[in-house]
């Protein structure tokens, strides 16, 4: 059922049916099943209303900021502001304004071993079955159904990584997505499928060329860890400070498999990040980590779901936010344990460090537990810098400001320490410190 054009207008903004048809027309030949899905997604997108303040899933969010007006799919870009973070990689994919900009396979034996690092467009043609089985196969459960539909409808291109059975890729695969130009709307997507016993690390970087361009980024990822596989996923969001960013991440963990994902949030004016882990079979393990530096008038809204569907599964969530100036954060996390998921270990911890008097932190940690032989804890702590620790550093001659910086970096270390790759740890630490010391701590 489609609504009339007139009544559609407020709900679709710039993403009208005409815009959608133009988008379809601009695509190269792609399988019909995928185009049919995109059309169905557009209808869903157009029919769903924008979130309102009283929606439980958007509690505390600034829903007034969710506007779809004034954006357009951008033209291809000629150059990208790519800067290496100094980590050796097995492969690198760079996307600019939704289109592939460059693709380099750096580890010589990748192809020979059957590892696929390619664009989604190529994969839709050459690896259709695998893509069809996994691409956006998990429903959006955390409240952004309308935006997931928008993403699926307007998705131009993305990254596809498939590691076959038993293959371990030592060096990380880097994916870079840039949004360039005022009013640009991008829809990045990363699909990672690790077959039985495979191992891979993926770094997903999102950025703009400055902090003044107004942009819309509606992205998603799908991570699948097969039997005994291991995936490490590191995301870094650094969109323009005038961007509206929505990201929906889905992780499916199968028997004895393990996924570690660490997301670093620095950019955008208003960012909503949904992360959903399903522990589907015994021995599955999901570690969900996040670090956010919220400053000025940024709002970071993070919603998570850890769902345990089988016995002997484990999940561990640690989300740390540092809030400066007038920033706002929302963390809403739910752990669900199904009745048969005995011997589940599930942990969730949200820690907010308040570094200014105007900042606001909201926490909604949640539990729905239906099996009794479990260990589940959640915790949320919001506080300023510990005055005893601050005093201790001052008695060693370190001035207050420097002490607070040290302590804030120390606050983040706990999360970075979970990474086993030292070079990645060091690179991220440098990134945070640079971002941080660029601005004075507001006291």
């Amino acid at each position, binding site marked *: 059922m489609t609504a009339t054009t007139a009544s559609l207008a407020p709900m679709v903004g710039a993403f009208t049916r005409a815009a959608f048809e133009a988008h379809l027309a601009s695509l190269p030949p792609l399988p019909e099943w995928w185009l049919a899905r995109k059309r169905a997604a557009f209808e869903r997108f157009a029919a769903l209303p924008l979130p309102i303040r009283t*929606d*439980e*899933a958007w*509690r*505390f969010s600034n829903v007034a900021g969710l506007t779809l007006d004034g954006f357009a799919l951008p033209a291809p870009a000629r150059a990208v502001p790519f800067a290496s973070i100094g980590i050796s990689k097995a492969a690198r994919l760079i996307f600019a304004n939704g289109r592939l900009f460059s693709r380099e396979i750096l580890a010589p034996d990748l192809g020979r071993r059957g590892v696929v690092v390619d664009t989604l467009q190529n994969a839709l043609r050459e690896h259709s079955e695998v893509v069809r089985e996994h691409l956006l196969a998990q429903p959006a459960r*955390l*409240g952004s159904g309308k935006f997931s539909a928008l993403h699926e409808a307007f998705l131009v291109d993305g990254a596809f990584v498939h590691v076959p059975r038993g293959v371990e890729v030592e060096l990380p695969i880097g994916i870079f997505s840039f949004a360039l130009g005022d009013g640009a709307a991008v829809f990045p997507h990363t699909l990672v499928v690790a077959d039985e016993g495979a191992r891979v690390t993926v770094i997903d970087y999102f950025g703009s060329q400055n902090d003044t361009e107004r942009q819309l980024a509606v992205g998603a990822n799908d991570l699948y860890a097969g039997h005994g596989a291991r995936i490490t996923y590191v995301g870094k969001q650094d969109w323009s400070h005038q961007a509206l960013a929505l990201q929906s991440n889905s992780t499916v963990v199968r028997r004895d498999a393990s996924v570690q994902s660490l997301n670093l949030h620095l950019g955008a004016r208003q960012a909503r990040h949904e992360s959903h882990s399903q522990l589907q079979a015994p021995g599955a393990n999901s570690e969900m980590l996040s670090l956010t530096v919220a400053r000025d008038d940024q709002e970071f809204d993070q*919603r998570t*779901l850890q769902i345990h569907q089988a016995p002997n599964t484990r999940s561990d969530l640690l989300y740390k936010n540092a809030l400066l100036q007038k920033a706002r954060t929302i963390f*809403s996390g*739910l752990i669900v344990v199904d*009745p048969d998921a*005995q011997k589940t270990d599930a942990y969730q911890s949200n820690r*907010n460090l*308040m*570094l*200014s*008097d*105007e*900042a*606001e*932190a*909201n*926490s*909604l*940690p*949640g*539990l*729905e*537990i*239906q*099996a*009794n*032989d*479990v*260990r*589940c*804890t*959640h*915790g*949320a*702590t*919001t*506080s*300023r810098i510990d005055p005893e620790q601050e005093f201790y550093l001052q008695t060693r001659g370190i001035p207050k400001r420097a002490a607070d910086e040290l302590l804030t970096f120390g606050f983040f270390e706990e999360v970075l320490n979970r990474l086993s790759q030292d070079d990645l740890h060091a690179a991220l630490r440098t990134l945070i410190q640079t971002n941080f010391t660029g601005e004075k701590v507001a006291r």
Partner: protein
Amino acid sequence: MKSLIDSGTAATVENPVAGIDQTKGDFTYDVAYEFDAGTGLSARTVDYISSVKKEADWIRAFRHQALQVFQSKPMPTHWATRDLENIDFDRIRYYLASGQKPKRTWDEVPEDIKRTFERLGIPEQERKFLAGVEAQFDSEAAYSNIKEIVAKQGVIFVNSTEGLREHPELFRRWFGKVIPTGDNKFSALNSAVFSGGSFIYVPPGVKVAQPLQAYFRINAENFGQFERTLIIADEGSEVTYMEGCTAPKFSTATLHSAVVELVALKGAKIQYITVQNWANNVFNLVTKRGLAHEEAEIKWIDCNIGSRLTMKYPGVVLKGRKARGEVISIALANDGQHQDTGAKMIHAADETTSNVVSKSISVGQGRATYRGQVHIPKRLRGCKNNTECDALLINTNSRTDTYPAITVRGERNSVQHEASVSKVSEDMIFYMQQRGLTEGQAMSLAVNGFINDLARQFPMEYSVELKRLIDLEMEGSVG
């Protein structure tokens, strides 16, 4: 996060949930009585209640306005359990005068109830009242001492009707201010048809040594469906109030919707202790809130063991500097029960502190839910909140949910919230069994240990009964 919670079906309820079940057969009625408001709720019912009580015009108007609010508000099933939809408001009797109380003979009381009384060591004289054999509890003889002391100190302790009629200058000021009529659908309902409950005023500096109990009210409408309680502790005074008991309390009325308002003026302390063990056919929906002024302290100690569904979130508005609010809560949910409890702490002044400790035990298919709200706005400094909620799941399909919401602004305030869910450790049970305890005894010990620090905060006689009650509940759960 889920916005709708699926309701579990109550496994063991045989009675229809609305109104009085006259088909069950073990209750008899006196047919000829003077006052009968009938079933269902309308403006006439409200007028009727007000006339019987000979209320002043302002109270009548208050009730009417509340009725309108109640009728205009929807059921809160967008966040609360859909089991609420089983309440049929038209079949409820909203007012029962003492002449109308249903009675039954002691022989008609079910055996397991009698056994419970025995196991809990309930005094003989109280058993008949609790079982619905007697309509009024004769408190005169037992508690006349307390009444005397209380009167000497200038403490006013009467029921709501008398309070509003005889002492409007004291109570009118705060009545309906801590919990406004429109706060929620059920506070509106209560505001329209309230009857019974305690109105207490403690003069400045008076520290009432003995806890005041609901039993002490003579002339009470003891089935307290829509009790309204208002306690005002004037500057520097202290008072403890207790209601309920661990013995299962019979009610033929299946909807209990009470409102409790507490006002602690500067430096005053109020402690409000509730032990709720309504029978399994009761919907127990209570709104409780306290207003704490400068350096005052309000403490809610709440134990929920009975009812089919309890929804209760005691709260404190910390209005004055250095005010303190605390909620201590123990909930036990067995088959067919849902304890949906929590706490609300609203910080509205500097250096206020709040503390919430909630422990719940889910047995069989019981379900315990914690909902919390902590709010600390900008421009406040030195505020702290600490929340701990722990859930113990005894059987495989026991269930618990936790939904706190915490908002903190500014860097001069701090909040800490921790929750955990676990089961009784098998190693611990084995160890106790190795020393000669049965599995059931071991479980009881373990569960009592879980709630021990909280149970100790209850007055002695309650905590003893509580332990015995838990033993009883646990017996069914093992094996």
